[in-house]
């Protein structure tokens, strides 16, 4: 298996992985998820069987780390009177704060599918590879995510 030096993965993909995580979990957790993503990738890298889609492989790991992050967050009770982080966060990098708070609150597959489609511009086939479903199901996840966002906005 011919794999490029790991440094080149970091150089080439750090920006889009960071952006994916920022859109998925918000700026408070993006940094930690980024570290976890690349640490896990470095550990598994030599055993990787297919080097044809390293970008998708990194997105898959980042997708899982974002899920872990949301699980952890649910496990931590918020202090009384404090709003959930996704509601009131101040994020200098994100254009529409309220909308991205809602994206962050979507079910995991819908969230990743929406982010990969609109922020990262992946095809439905590639999205399916990342989140582990068919192309049709990836399309379905994006559509369901959009529907839910519209309902949230209009409610």
């Amino acid at each position: 298996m011919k794999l490029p030096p790991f440094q080149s993965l970091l150089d080439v993909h750090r920006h889009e992985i960071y952006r994916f995580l920022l859109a998925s979990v918000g700026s408070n957790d993006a940094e930690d998820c980024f570290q976890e993503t690349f640490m896990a990738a470095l550990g598994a890298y030599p055993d990787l069987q297919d080097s044809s889609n390293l970008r998708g492989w990194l997105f898959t790991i980042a997708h899982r780390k974002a899920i872990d992050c949301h699980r952890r967050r649910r496990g931590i009770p918020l202090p009384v009177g404090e709003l959930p982080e996704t509601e009131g966060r101040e994020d200098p990098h994100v254009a529409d704060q309220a909308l991205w708070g809602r994206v962050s609150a979507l079910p995991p597959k819908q969230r990743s599918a929406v982010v990969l489609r609109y922020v990262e511009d992946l095809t439905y086939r590639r999205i399916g590879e990342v989140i582990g479903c068919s192309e049709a199901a990836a399309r379905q996840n994006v559509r369901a995510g959009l529907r839910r966002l519209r309902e949230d906005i209009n409610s």
Partner: protein
Amino acid sequence: MNDLETTLSDFGAAELPAAAAARRFIEAAGESVDIAYRVLDSPLGRLMVVATPRGLLRVGFDNEQGVLDDLAERVSPRILEYPARLEGIRRELDEYFSGRREHFEQTLDWALIAGFRRRVLAVTAEIPFGAVSTYQEIARQAGQPRGARAAGQALGGNPLPIVIPCHRVVRSGGGLGGYAGGLDRKEYLLRLERAASRID
């Protein structure tokens, strides 16, 4: 595309702290990474120095292509630009090029060197600063008295030039012989060592 989709595509995030995050990742992962490298400036142009946790693995001149790709395949693809591990060799090369160092003290990782090549390079490593030997003599010491040509090939594949001083091996008749980094570099190193030896 409707409004919602347009807004989603306009995520923003023009300037992300991704480079800083990548630096922090390297700080955390570099210590134990299989292969660390760094690029140094030297009088011989840019040098790439590469080390495993066991020691110095490779020194590459800038005319060599695909040094890291080759190491990714032969040793491990877990490769990061982690300069801290190469600080010792950076300092020693600096001192060597300014004529203040005759021996390198870095531990070497011989993982890329096996068989006859290993015997040749082990013998070559013992040639003193400022001295020279011949392909014939090196072959004899490596156990193949008639293997001058093979010794030349082994030296041409030295993964640790400068540090294992293959530049100190010349032809019996006085000719310079060959050098993977180019004869100009070989000449430069021999002149540097002659000059530094004379001062002593």
